[in-house]
């Protein structure tokens, strides 16, 4: 069954001629069609993917293929693509075709990946359930009555159901890690500045970061290797050497210290998640790692702080959607102001409007110091909490989420309860550090549980190494929802 293989295995199969890129792409296109009811994709590029596959096979015949030539991948619909519309899950961009490819899209295409389609997401990445998408919610393959998480829920559902072997995502407050946890996958949010944001539609520019959603740490490493690195087109992309992530996957983790913050193991977390997290930590101990108690005393301030900074940046970023240069424009209007106001009221969904309004408020005269400045100060305190913790340990471990995948509709009408589902992931974005979520078990409803490992800035290779070693001695990451076997 080719669709049950990882990128790493598929790469070998292509190389050995066991399967052609065309056969592989057809296999995934069939599955995408068959499992349409997950609503994981906003657009599928059937024709384009087959053309790319044919040319991949040709390159291979001519001996010009790389190890990655012909591997299918899906992109979150926040990444600009010339071949397909880029909607960002919004009515505002329902018919938007970008004049250029995002750097991430371009780099992955250049090394041989075949872009098969664009995945569903919360509108402008604002949400934790993929329910705010203008194109309908995505279902969780483990239980179709439940959310796949968000905002990269389409990417996670697509990989979990093996409609594609891996996908890109973006993470502003947990949008890679939370859906990865809800769908039983490995999802990595790189350090801020590691992956170019060029062509990635901005939500909160000081927090947004692209990364891989994959079946294994090995696949995540392979993807990150080809996504990361300086890009002059993004002034926030940092000039740091990109190490060989594959080379260090098998390094011994003996003697490494894992910090266990007491704040992440309290009674607000599902018992089944605490149990699974503790078992995973015990597994790491068997691998030679050492557990130490640490504290991240200001974690609780993360969510309030985020819900000032992210909306403030969003209110500024989304001011570009004015119905003049691209995107939706309202049907009938009188003057220019009415055109703006109707366009934005009709083009944006409720959650996006909420966040623009909160951000506008926080930045408005008389409120700036009490909200925005205060949030930025707390941001420093949170970043310093992490820095202090890393004096005592190499990595920090805890649950990725306080619950497993919740029911569709359960939180969508109560924004604050939705926000709280990101409690363990959000501080990582505020601090700009990398974190990974890996599957570590199931609850009594058969829903996947994720463990989050956080590391110091630019130590993605350490996170991948830790996760890979764990995945060598466990098989949670190989589990598939029955219907999709």
């Amino acid at each position: 069954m080719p669709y049950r293989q990882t990128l790493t295995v598929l790469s070998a199969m292509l190389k050995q001629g066991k399967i052609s890129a065309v056969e592989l792409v057809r296999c995934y296109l069939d599955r995408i069609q068959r499992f349409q009811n997950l609503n994981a994709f906003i657009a599928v590029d059937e024709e384009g993917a087959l053309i790319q596959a044919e040319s991949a096979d040709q390159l291979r015949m001519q001996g010009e293929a790389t190890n990655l030539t012909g591997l299918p991948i899906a992109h979150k619909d926040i990444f600009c693509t010339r071949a397909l519309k880029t909607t960002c899950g919004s009515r505002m961009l329902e018919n938007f075709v970008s004049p250029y490819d995002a750097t991430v899209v371009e780099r992955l295409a250049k090394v041989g990946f075949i872009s098969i389609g664009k995945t569903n997401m919360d509108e402008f990445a604002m949400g934790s359930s993929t329910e705010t998408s203008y194109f309908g919610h995505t279902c969780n393959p483990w239980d179709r009555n439940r959310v796949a998480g968000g905002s990269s829920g389409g990417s996670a559902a697509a990989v979990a159901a093996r409609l594609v072997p891996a996908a890109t995502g973006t993470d502003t407050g947990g949008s890679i890690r939370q859906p990865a946890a809800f769908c039983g996958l490995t999802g990595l949010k790189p350090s801020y500045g590691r992956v170019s944001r060029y062509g990635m539609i901005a939500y909160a520019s000081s927090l947004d970061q692209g990364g891989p959603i994959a079946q294994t740490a090995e696949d995540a490493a392979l993807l990150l290797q080809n996504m990361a690195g300086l890009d002059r087109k993004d002034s926030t992309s940092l000039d740091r050497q990109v190490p060989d992530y594959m080379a260090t996957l098998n390094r011994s983790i003996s003697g490494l210290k894992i910090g266990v913050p007491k704040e992440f193991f309290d009674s607000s977390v599902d018992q089944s998640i605490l149990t699974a997290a503790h078992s995973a930590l015990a597994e790491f101990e068997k691998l030679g790692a050492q557990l130490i108690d640490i504290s991240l005393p200001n974690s609780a301030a993360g969510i309030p702080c985020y819900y000032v900074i992210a909306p403030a940046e969003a209110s500024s970023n989304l001011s570009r959607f004015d119905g003049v240069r691209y995107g939706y424009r309202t049907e009938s209007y009188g003057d220019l102001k009415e055109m703006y106001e109707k366009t934005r009221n009709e083009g944006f969904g409720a959650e996006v409007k909420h966040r623009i309004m909160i951000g506008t408020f926080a930045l408005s005269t008389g409120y700036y110091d009490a909200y925005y400045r205060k949030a930025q100060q707390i941001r420093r305190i949170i970043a310093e909490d992490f820095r202090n913790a890393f004096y005592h340990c190499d990595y920090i471990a805890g649950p990725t989420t306080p619950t497993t995948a919740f029911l569709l509709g359960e939180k969508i009408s109560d924004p604050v309860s939705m926000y709280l589902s990101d409690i363990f992931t959000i501080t990582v974005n505020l601090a700009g550090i990398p974190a990974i979520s890996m599957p570590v078990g199931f609850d009594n409803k058969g829903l996947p549980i994720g463990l989050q490992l956080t590391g110091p800035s630019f130590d993605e290779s350490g996170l991948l190494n830790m996760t890979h070693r764990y995945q060598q001695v466990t098989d949670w990451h190989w589990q598939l929802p029955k219907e999709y076997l």
Partner: protein
Amino acid sequence: MSIHKSTIERIANLARIGIDAGNIDQYSRDLSEILDLVKKMDSVSTDNVEPLAHPQDIELRLRPDQVTEPNHRERLQNMAPATDQGLYLVPKIIE
């Protein structure tokens, strides 16, 4: 903290979002709830703490002030709702 209707109207105006009059109460309730959450920041003392704007706490890189792109006017205007002779069309703003 409860946000008054007039504040909602003011913010909506600043954000250029023409919210329907019938929805103002709902906005007021939703935004008040979010601000209640946000006010929990006050439990953290931030005296003498420098604000952190960039997560890596560094200055952004500047690029040389050079033209690097050719003229893409046609391609870019293809995606605009209304253009004419290379111009973007909007309602008349000067009588």
